[in-house]
C-alpha cells in the first residue's frame, strides 16, 4: 500500500451530490482552492446519479470542471486524526486531506423497515432499485411493485417505467388526507408545481394506493410475490422486484464523529450553514431532508460563508433555502411513518441484516447499547446504517457515540495513523 502525499485545501467538501457540487463550485468561484470527495465514481450523489441528464446537474458539473476543483472519487472519509485533517481510504491507498474550512454534504440514505421476506434478493430500496437500474440493471418487461413512503416512490416509478418496467402498483403508507394536504402544500413552491404536474402526466396509468404498505414478501431464493395491504384488504401481487423504501434519513456519521451538535435529529447550523464547530459547515440533507433546491441553496451559502464572502444573489439563495426548509417540513409531516408499521415484523423477522438478529431477540433490550452487546445488532459491516433507523422506529432506541472508522476500512488504513498528521 502506498500513501500519497497529504493534500491541502482552503475548502474541503465531503460529498459530491447537489449540495456538495454547489458548495465546491461556489467556493472555487470565490477563489478558494477546493477539493470535493465522494465514495461514488462520479459526481451527482443519488439524485443526479449516472449520466447527469438534468440540466441543472450538468450546469454545476460544467462549473466544477471550469473552476479546477480537485475531485476525489472512490474516496471514503473514515477518521479525523487531528483538527483540520481528514483521513480517507481509496481502492489502493489512504490519503490525508487538510483543510482550512470543511463543508459536510454527506447526503441521506433510504430508511428501510423490516417485514417478513424483506431480506429476499430482488427486494431493494426504491432508490436502491433505481440506482441499480442506473448502474445497468435491465428491467424491460419486469414487474415491479413500488412501496413505502415519500416522493421518491413516484420519481422511481416514473423512471422505471421509462426503462420498460411494468409498475404493478405504488403503495404509499401515508393517508389520502395527508397526501391531499401535501398536494395543496406544493402549491406554495413554484418549481414543485411544475414538477408535480409533469409527474402526474408521467404517472398516468400506474395504479397508486395510499394507506397501503407491504406486509410480506414471498419466494424461494428470490422474490416471487408481495402481499400488500390496500383499502383494508390484503392482496398478493406477483412481481420480479419490490422497490421498497420509507423516505430518507440523513448521513450523520461524519458530523457526529467530528462533534457537530444535532438539533431534532439533524445537524444544527446557523444562517451561514456553520455547525457548532468553527470551520465546519453543513449543507443539504444532513440539515433536513428537503431535496435538491434546499441542497443547492445551502451548498452555495456554505461555499460563500467558507470563503468569508458575501453571497452574490443572496436574496435568491435565502429565498430558495427558506422554501427548501419549508418543503422539508412538509415532507416530514406528510410522510411520517404510521405506527402500524411497527407491527410489520413478526418474531422471526430479521431486524439486523448484517448479524441476522431477529425481532424476538431484540425487543427485550432496553437500549441500543444493550442490544448491541447482547445480540450484536448494529455491530456488523453496515455499522448500524440500516438497523439503526429501524430500531429507532421500532423501539425508540437512540444510537450511541460514533467511533472511527465511520466506514469499514482496511486494517492498514487504520494503521496508517501511526505517523502524526503532518501540518
Amino acid at each position, binding site marked *: 500500500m502506498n500513501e500519497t502525499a497529504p493534500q491541502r485545501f482552503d475548502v474541503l467538501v465531503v460529498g459530491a451530490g447537489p449540495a456538495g457540487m454547489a458548495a465546491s463550485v461556489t467556493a472555487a468561484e470565490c477563489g478558494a482552492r477546493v477539493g470535493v470527495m465522494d465514495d*461514488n465514481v462520479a459526481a451527482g450523489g443519488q439524485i443526479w446519479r449516472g449520466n447527469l441528464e438534468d440540466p441543472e446537474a450538468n450546469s454545476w458539473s460544467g462549473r466544477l470542471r471550469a473552476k479546477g476543483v480537485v475531485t476525489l472519487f472512490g474516496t471514503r472519509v473514515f477518521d479525523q486524526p487531528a483538527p483540520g485533517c481528514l483521513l480517507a481510504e481509496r481502492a489502493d491507498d489512504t490519503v490525508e486531506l487538510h483543510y482550512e474550512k470543511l463543508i459536510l454534504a454527506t447526503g441521506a*440514505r*433510504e430508511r428501510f423497515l423490516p417485514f417478513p421476506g424483506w431480506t429476499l434478493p430482488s427486494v431493494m430500496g426504491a432508490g436502491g432499485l433505481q*440506482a441499480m437500474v442506473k*448502474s*445497468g*440493471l435491465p428491467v424491460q418487461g419486469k414487474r415491479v411493485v413500488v412501496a413505502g413512503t415519500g416522493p421518491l416512490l413516484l420519481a422511481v416509478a416514473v423512471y422505471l417505467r421509462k426503462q420498460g418496467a411494468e409498475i404493478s402498483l405504488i403503495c404509499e403508507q401515508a393517508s389520502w388526507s395527508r397526501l391531499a394536504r401535501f398536494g395543496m402544500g406544493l402549491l406554495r413552491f413554484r418549481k414543485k408545481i411544475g414538477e408535480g404536474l409533469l409527474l402526474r402526466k408521467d404517472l398516468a396509468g400506474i395504479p397508486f394506493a395510499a394507506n397501503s404498505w407491504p406486509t410480506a414478501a414471498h419466494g424461494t431464493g428470490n422474490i416471487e410475490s408481495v402481499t400488500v395491504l390496500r383499502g383494508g384488504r390484503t392482496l398478493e401481487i406477483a412481481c420480479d422486484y419490490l422497490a421498497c423504501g420509507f423516505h430518507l434519513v440523513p448521513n450523520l456519521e461524519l458530523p457526529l464523529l467530528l462533534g457537530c451538535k444535532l438539533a431534532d435529529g439533524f445537524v444544527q447550523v446557523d444562517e451561514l450553514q456553520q455547525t457548532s464547530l468553527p470551520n465546519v459547515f453543513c449543507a443539504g440533507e444532513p440539515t433536513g431532508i428537503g431535496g435538491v433546491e434546499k441542497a443547492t441553496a445551502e451548498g452555495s451559502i456554505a461555499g460563500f460563508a467558507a470563503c468569508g464572502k458575501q453571497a452574490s444573489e443572496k436574496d435568491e439563495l435565502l429565498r430558495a433555502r427558506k422554501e427548501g426548509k419549508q418543503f422539508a417540513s412538509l415532507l416530514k409531516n406528510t410522510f411520517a411513518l404510521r405506527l402500524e408499521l411497527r407491527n410489520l415484523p413478526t418474531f422471526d423477522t430479521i431486524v439486523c*441484516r448484517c448479524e*441476522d438478529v431477529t425481532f424476538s431477540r431484540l425487543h427485550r433490550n432496553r437500549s441500543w447499547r444493550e442490544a448491541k452487546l447482547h445480540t450484536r445488532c448494529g455491530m456488523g459491516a453496515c455499522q448500524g446504517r440500516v438497523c439503526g433507523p429501524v430500531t429507532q422506529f421500532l423501539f425508540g432506541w437512540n444510537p450511541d457515540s460514533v467511533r472511527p472508522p465511520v466506514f469499514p476500512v482496511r486494517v492498514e488504513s487504520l494503521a496508517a495513523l501511526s505517523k502524526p498528521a503532518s501540518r
Partner: protein
Amino acid sequence: MPSPICIKVNGVEVFVPSGASVAVAVVMAGQACRRSVSGEPRGPLCGMGICFDCRATIDGKPHLRSCQIACAPGMDVKTDE
C-alpha cells in the same frame, strides 16, 4: 453504443452493459451476492454502498461492495455460493 463487457460470476460468463456495476452482473447471472450469517441468500438492498448486502469476492479480494464497483472485462467474481 459501447459494446457489452464479459465477466465471470462463479465461473460462468455473463455479458453486461458497459459501465454496469458488479452487483448488476451478479443479479443478471441469477445469483445471490452473498449468504448471510444464518445462510440466507442476499442481494443488493440500497444500491448506494451502505447496506453491505452486495458484498462479493472480486478478483480474489473478499467483502467488496459490488454495487460500487464497475465491471471490467475478464473480472472474476465469486459469491458465497
